[in-house]
């Protein structure tokens, strides 16, 4: 069962991100559902993850993979019923797995009844639930996020014969958070799911809730006020639940989303993610240490969320032009891999299917300060299909076995919501859970062990970090510390063996215990501690004074 006492449980969590649609189909219609997901909870339990983050599963026209919600109080019939969800949630909790659900508050689908009402007339009671204008000249200069598809943040509604504001697709009108009725209703939606037992929300697109003339319409004080209101209600009525912010912003702009510990519990560290890939390709720790230096201190109860890949493109919004060009050239030479301001590829293909790189990157994910998120399928090295439109190439069915439809569904292959990856390198017959379960040395087995070691101590989730800056810039080394527990992490970011001398004078006399094999390494003495690391190798050492 999920332990009920620890209010800061999210700091020690290992989160697994999954789309219900993509995980397991239980009824043979070619679409994953809650019953299927419930059947696979034992797999997730064995993997060792502690929390599930579910992408939107609400009724929706599915023009943006569910991020265009048309009913916040129900489950999309493709995925089952509300009862199926409740049953799944109960089982997950019984397995010791918490569940975070997606809450898309910034906008709705244009098919949502609220919008349908709102567009009818200027006098409609729902009119002020969205941001309307007679012209498309307000909020000039605000950036367009989906630059590949949208020309403006305004769209003209033929019914209403006026313009509505949308930061994302034009079929996703933004809600008007200046309207108290909207804020009340949003809380009602959240309360509905909280009362059902969900453990938290991942709030989508939070920087864009409020608009003001003459600003970027991002990160506005009024937006923070909305969040503080929601957080206060959450703490008061549902203590121990969690809010996770999706705010793709620079570190200095991200800090305020934690407020004084009165806004979000967690926020994604977007700028770090591309720099981890950059550091690996450059074989240089500088991108990582630099961005973490720029990362503001956050209130003690708060936590960063770290990820390597997710359901979106690998976003390159939070890098410089020079860095973006470099990332495109190194990770997305085929233009089909590029989307908006990012790269639509999964982890394994990004890393050339190099097992050593995958291990190193997951090692970083699990040892840098924050709570790690694993995107479904990355634990077995699933590939992608960049020929599928939008971001669908990284949202293909989970590959459970080498059998019919990769064990995902009994439907005819033509009925599947998405084609399964079939190529010889990443196809389901080469990469699947069943095969990897049978091998003690598979990526899946290794990931289980990694998670196990990560969970063996709270130092990774809650400890401080101090970078060591050895002269060898190909080695990223840091010390994590929590109370009396000290862990030394050394990562070789390069594809060649490296020698590195670490200044561990402060820990003189300590013995190093390698955390995976539990083997002893020599005691720290007077001289700099010499380590040699194989290509892309990393070490986690527990330091003990014995």
């Amino acid at each position, binding site marked *: 069962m999920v332990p009920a006492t620890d209010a800061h449980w999210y700091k020690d969590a290992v989160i697994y991100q999954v789309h219900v649609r993509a995980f397991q189909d239980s009824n043979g219609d070619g679409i994953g559902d809650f019953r299927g997901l419930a059947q696979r909870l034992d797999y997730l339990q064995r993997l060792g993850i502690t929390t599930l983050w579910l992408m939107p599963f609400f009724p929706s026209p599915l023009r943006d993979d569910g991020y265009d919600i048309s009913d916040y109080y129900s489950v999309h019939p493709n995925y089952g019923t509300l009862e199926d969800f409740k049953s799944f949630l109960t089982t997950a909790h019984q397995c010791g797995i918490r569940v975070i659900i997606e809450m898309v508050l910034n906008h709705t689908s244009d098919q949502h009844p609220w919008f349908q009402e709102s567009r009818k007339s200027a006098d409609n009671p729902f009119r002020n639930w969205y941001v309307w204008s007679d012209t498309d000249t307000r909020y000039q200069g605000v950036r367009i996020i989906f630059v590949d598809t949208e020309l403006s943040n305004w769209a003209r509604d033929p019914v209403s014969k006026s313009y509505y504001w949308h930061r994302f697709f034009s079929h996703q009108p933004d809600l008007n958070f200046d309207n108290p009725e909207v804020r009340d209703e949003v809380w009602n939606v959240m309360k509905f799911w909280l009362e059902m037992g969900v453990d938290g929300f991942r709030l989508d697109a939070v920087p864009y809730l409020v608009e003001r003339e003459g600003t970027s319409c991002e990160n506005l004080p009024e937006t923070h006020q909305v969040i503080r209101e929601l957080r206060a209600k959450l703490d008061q009525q549902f203590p121990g639940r969690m809010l996770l912010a999706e705010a793709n912003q620079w570190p200095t702009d991200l800090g305020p989303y934690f407020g004084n510990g009165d806004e979000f519990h967690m926020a994604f560290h977007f700028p770090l993610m591309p720099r981890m890939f*950059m550091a690996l390709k*450059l*074989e*240089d*720790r*500088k*991108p990582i*240490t*630099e961005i973490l*230096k720029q990362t503001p201190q956050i209130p003690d109860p708060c936590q960063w969320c770290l990820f390597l890949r997710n359901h979106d493109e690998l976003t390159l919004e939070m890098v*410089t032009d*020079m*860095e973006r060009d*470099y990332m495109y050239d190194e990770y997305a030479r085929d233009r089909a891999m590029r989307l908006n301001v990012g790269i639509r590829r999964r982890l394994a293909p990004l890393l050339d299917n190099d097992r050593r790189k995958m291990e190193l990157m997951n090692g970083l994910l699990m040892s840098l300060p924050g709570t790690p998120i694993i995107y479904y399928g990355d634990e077995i090295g699933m590939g992608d299909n960049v020929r599928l439109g939008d971001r669908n190439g990284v949202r293909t069915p989970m590959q459970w076995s080498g059998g019919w439809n990769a064990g995902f569904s009994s439907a005819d292959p033509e009925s599947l919501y998405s084609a399964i990856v079939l190529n010889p390198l990443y196809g389901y017959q080469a990469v699947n859970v069943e095969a990897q379960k049978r091998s003690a040395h598979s990526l899946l087995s290794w990931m289980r062990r990694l998670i196990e070691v990560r969970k063996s101590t709270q130092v990774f989730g809650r400890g401080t970090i101090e*970078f060591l*800056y*050895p*002269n*060898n*810039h*190909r080695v990223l080394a840091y010390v994590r510390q929590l109370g009396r527990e000290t862990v030394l992490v050394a990562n070789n970011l*390069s594809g*060649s063996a*490296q*020698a*590195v*001398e670490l200044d561990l004078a402060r820990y003189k006399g300590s013995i190093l215990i390698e955390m995976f094999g539990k083997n002893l390494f020599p005691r720290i003495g007077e001289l700099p501690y010499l380590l040699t690391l194989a290509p892309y190798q990393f070490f986690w050492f527990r330091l003990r004074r014995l």
Partner: protein
Amino acid sequence: MSEESILSDDLLRQLISVGEVDILVGLPTQNNAKTIGETAQIIRSGLLKYFPRARTAILDADAGSRDGTPGLVTAAAISDTGESEMPQSLRTMHCITTTLAGTEKKGTALQTMVAAADLLRARVCAVISPETTRITPEWIDRLVRPIYQDDFDLVTPTYRRHAYDGILITNLLYPVTRALFGRRVREPNPADFAFSGKFGAYLMDRESWWQELGESGAEFCFTAAAIAGDYRLQQSFLGTKDRAENRSADLVLAMRRTLSALFWSLDEYYDAWSNHNSESQPVPTEGAEYETTLEPVRVNRKRFYEMFRSGVADLEPVLATILTTPTLEELKRCINTAEASVPFSDELWARTIYEFAGSYHHAVISRDHIIQALVPLYRGRVYTYLEQINVASPQKVEQDIEAVCRTFERCKPTLAAMWARRQGGS
């Protein structure tokens, strides 16, 4: 440090930290605090601007500076350890420094750079003079890119020079190199140049090469080795060269370094130059092949003449062992003519140099004495040259230099004959 090692343990430790690089820039420094800080910063700017994705490092091979030179070089590093505002860069840029052992510093500095470039597997190593005050970020591009992108092996510079500047090059090194080795390298003894990893590896394999070079003009030997080894050469125009008056100007020392390298190369690469009989070929050049300026400069030409005349008179017995009788007699005639009309002709100059080279080869007397004996004759040649170009245009200056080169090419058999005659046991 082991007895044979040219790299100290400390430098080796630093190289281990640097790891593989694409571009290494070497600075052979000694008490250059006045200029080196800015030079290092400009090199860094050049690397960031033109090679932002390349793995780069700057190596200061310092000959025991006491003015804080190494610290000024290392301040240009880009790392994640400092608190200061760093320029936008993808990568770490190491600036490492080593203090050279021994007395023959310049050759050791270059050998250290070649060895470091080899160990770091650098595709390109550029060497920049620490005394320069004219460097711009573009220098880095112009020196490095031909190798980095187009697979050349040695890039030598061309400069915009004052006609009075670099006379040792225009009247001696360039004509001799061109005549003997058949390539028109305008700056065969470059202070700023770049070489490929492939060429550096070739040089590293030639242990005797480094032992012989010592303090002498190793830069010239790079050029000679590249031509003799049929490596790909390119010239790149860098802009204005510092005037000699801004640099240390010890003529005897400069000639000792330069000529010992030149004469040594004639021995080392005898097969290359003796078998080369066709017309000299131009070297591919990016930018201007040369530019000459003629703004008025005060030069005491009379002093050159007097030193020439007294030198020839004082050293006549020594010159008699080096030069053939006709050449010596002609020189003596020169010092007996009126000052304004000293006819140290191109042909006499070419013959003189070839006879000195032959005597150096056969070591008719101490080789150091041979080179020192050439100093007053060089002054005489400079006097004549300055007289020639006194009221000339830049085009006329270049025509004069071309004429000198043609003369050296025409007289090449003189050297071949001297080589053979002495070998024949005369």
